[in-house]
């Protein structure tokens, strides 16, 4: 599809989405600054993409949108500047993570989003698989610049985990929490995971790929039997088991992520630190973790990207630990 056709399609969807009672076809042509033929082509494309649309006496109405992660549909109501400005979408791909790395080599910029309905060889950490059922989960990867390069892991992990947990809370009302560092839980069961990978291309600026996998509309049967005790989907956790719009969730997570990264770029860490600390259940709680091979225990007094964890330990001594040095953390 050409850039112009994409623009019209995105604009058309945006306009229809905002007007549940319908929009006059003539007004649309004027609003989108295009001709009738181009508009008709966009209309036909919508139908092909399984959007349920109605045309009555020159009034166009969007009845129902498919819950597909189509770029023009995602972007139609996306309020971000850079995150998701370019979207690569396929029904199916081996791994959004690998595809994103290929796009880095091609020179794609910060914020490029890769999304698929289904991954045939999706991966989690250390080469573990990430199981997905077609059209049920939300799987995406984003190309991000590493800034600053020496502590990017804490910056990107904290920002992404907070964006995913808050996105889930906003769209579903479910009590999503962060399990340090990179899992998202609902009532103690895993609903989402984050995989951050960085490779050296020798071409500045250094970039990472942030991968997110959320179990959204999976049924119990969709989850591997071995994982049913420890994992769940957002839909399963809802009282009515009502399906959730993956498009709405994706838009919300992207918006959140951009907001947090902007704050970090401005040196404003406080609001993010506080949100992240609360979602991680750190506030005034005792934690146990490993640092440099030693077991550490203490009550959390402060938690943040730059400050790390400030603990009060036995005997009342206070000690700080960098987030990057913390392994196997458990909140007591």
């Amino acid at each position, binding site marked *: 599809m050409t850039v112009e056709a994409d623009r019209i399609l995105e604009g058309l969807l945006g306009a229809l989405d905002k007007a549940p009672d319908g929009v006059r076809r003539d007004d649309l042509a004027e609003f989108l600054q295009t001709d009738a033929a181009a508009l008709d082509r966009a209309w036909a494309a919508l139908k092909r993409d399984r959007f349920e649309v109605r045309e009555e006496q020159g009034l166009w109405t969007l009845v129902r949108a498919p819950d597909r992660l189509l770029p023009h549909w995602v972007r139609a109501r996306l309020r971000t500047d850079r995150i998701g400005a370019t979207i690569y979408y396929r029904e199916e791909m081996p791994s959004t993570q690998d595809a994103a790395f290929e796009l880095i080599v091609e020179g794609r910029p910060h914020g490029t989003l890769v999304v698929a309905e289904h991954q045939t060889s999706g991966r989690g*950490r250390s080469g573990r698989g990430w199981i997905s059922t077609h059209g049920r989960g939300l799987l995406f990867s984003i190309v991000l610049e590493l800034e600053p390069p020496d*502590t990017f*892991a804490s910056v990107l992990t904290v920002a992404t985990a907070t964006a995913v947990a808050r996105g889930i809370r906003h769209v579903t009302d479910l009590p999503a929490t962060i399990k340090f560092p990179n899992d998202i839980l609902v009532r103690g069961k895993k609903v989402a995971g984050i995989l951050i*990978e*960085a490779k050296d291309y020798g071409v500045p600026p250094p970039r990472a790929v942030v991968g997110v996998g959320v179990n959204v509309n999976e049924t119990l049967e969709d989850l591997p039997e071995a994982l049913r005790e420890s994992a769940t989907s957002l839909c399963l956790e809802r009282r009515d088991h009502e399906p959730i719009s993956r498009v709405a969730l994706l838009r919300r997570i992207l918006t959140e992520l951009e907001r947090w990264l902007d704050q970090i770029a401005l040196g404003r860490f406080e609001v993010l630190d506080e949100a992240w600390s609360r979602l991680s259940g750190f506030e005034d709680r005792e934690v146990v973790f490993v640092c440099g091979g030693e077991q550490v225990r203490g009550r959390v007094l402060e938690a943040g990207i730059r400050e790390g964890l400030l603990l009060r330990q036995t005997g009342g001594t206070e000690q*700080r*630990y960098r*987030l*990057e*040095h913390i392994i196997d953390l458990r909140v007591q």
Partner: protein
Amino acid sequence: MDLKELKKMIALMNENDLLELEIEEGGKRLRLKKAGPPGAGGAVPPPVLPTAAAAPVAPGSETEASAEDQGFVTIRSPMVGTYYQAAAPDADTYVEYGSKVSAETVVCIVEAMKVMNEIKAEVSGEIVKLCVKNGEAVEYGQALFLVKPA
């Protein structure tokens, strides 16, 4: 060497950010050393954050300096994290004492918040010293290995 020549050399050093300049005229020995990132020659800024494992720069920092005088190259950690000598607890170590490495050889992993970073040697030669223990917390710029360049 007269004062004029010396001044010329100092200017040369300033222009090119040289940390060291060694010249031996008769035997024709010349050795230049640049302040390369990250912080070669001990020019590492102190870590901003004090941590429990803040000791790690100590092991062999003195020998490190003298080792660099002997022409050894230091492989430093490009990030904050935990040092691992192998991809998994039961896997073979990437390198050991005496291993031959090239620029592209992965020498270890530095993990931070489950982000795995493969560290490359970026120099050809032989590992002559392992500066950190498996599982140790490392800081930005901390020495991980000494390499005798090939």
